């Protein structure tokens, strides 16, 4: 049981990185990564939301959708749960820490449309994870996203000062850089997790 959780955690962050391998969460990854400060903020918010969403959607699926035979409503129900959760998180953060709220600004509501959030919710069900496994997967997905976006922002900050051909400025060079980052992460696919965790 412990071993499997570790495997899920490590694969979610490195081997099957949600952004660089699974192509989830690309829009915010490209859009919010011009500066490391905002990237960190977005990363933290995503970690929090993805973990919460994994738990809530799993519970809804297990206690409501499956027993009532409403599996086909999964898409509609999940996205509503996510929208509601994000709204709740926004209100809670606003109350608890107005500074953090101001720092995250417009990014928080944007997380509703982050593919990674709905993606991890659906993936948890597809892989038939238990509640704890789903939570760990959500956490790993969030950490993986945060890792990718912070790394990427560091590179982009440097890129801003580099001599780039006019046609490649902006999104083109960002995408090519992301591609190189993705190649780097491909190196993790050779991990033998069994040997690593002595299972």
């Amino acid at each position: 049981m412990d071993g499997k959780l570790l495997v899920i955690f490590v694969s979610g962050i490195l081997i099957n990185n949600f952004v660089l391998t699974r192509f989830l969460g690309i829009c915010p990854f490209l859009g919010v990564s011009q500066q490391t400060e905002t990237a960190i903020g977005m990363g933290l918010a995503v970690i929090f939301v993805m973990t919460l969403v994994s738990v809530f959607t799993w519970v809804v699926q297990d206690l409501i959708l499956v027993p009532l035979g409403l599996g086909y409503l999964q898409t509609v129900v999940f996205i509503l749960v996510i929208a509601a959760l994000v709204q709740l998180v926004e209100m809670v953060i606003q109350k608890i820490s107005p500074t953090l709220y101001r720092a995250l600004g417009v990014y928080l509501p944007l997380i509703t449309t982050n593919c990674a959030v709905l993606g991890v919710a659906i993936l948890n069900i597809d892989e038939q994870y238990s509640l704890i496994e789903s939570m760990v997967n959500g956490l790993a997905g969030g950490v993986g996203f945060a890792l990718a976006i912070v790394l990427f922002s560091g590179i982009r900050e440097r890129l801003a000062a580099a001599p780039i051909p006019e046609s490649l400025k902006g999104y083109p060079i960002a995408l090519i850089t992301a591609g190189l980052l993705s190649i780097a992460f491909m190196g993790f696919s050779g991990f033998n997790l069994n040997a690593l965790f002595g299972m």
Partner: protein
Amino acid sequence: MNFRKALANGLLAENPTFRLVLGMCPTLAVTTSMMNGIGMGLAATFVLVGSNAIVSLVRSFIPHKIRIPCYIVIIATFVTVVDLVMAGFTPALHETLGIFIPLIVVNCIILARAESFASKNSLLSSIGDGLGMGIGFTCALTMLGSIRELLGTGVVLAAPDFNFAGLRVIPEAFKALVVIMAPGGFIVLGLLLGFINWLTRKASAHSS
């Protein structure tokens, strides 16, 4: 904006993939072959037209404060329809596109068009906009998918749902597998965007 203008707008001036750079997740993930690109594009077009139409019809009834969740439910309904239809009629495509079919719900393009266009324009223009954006998206995906399929597998026009294995253009030994994997998606799209930027700049330099 009338129907025809909205249609042309989505195809060229405001092409969602190449100009607005929206909906990147499916663009990168499903363009491993031309058929996958077309399939996803058509599915997204169906959802886009449907949701734009409904949002435009009910725009005066939706309270402003809860408009986003309302749009999302409308979009999610159409996505569920597409998901079930594809599962029934094109199982191979459904299997390949996998998780990205339900993820059409959070495709930035659809919500953005509902919010910025359909909620403020007539039914016919909204349908035109949905159709234009959808076709523009489909064209972009098809282009990207074809390039990646050609370079990554050496085959073109492979269509498992129609039992067609495609035409081999590049010998098996020379295919570049990385092109249809994750990095390939990023790099090919980046280069394609750069190329289109270059074309646009040339065109505007010529006209000025």
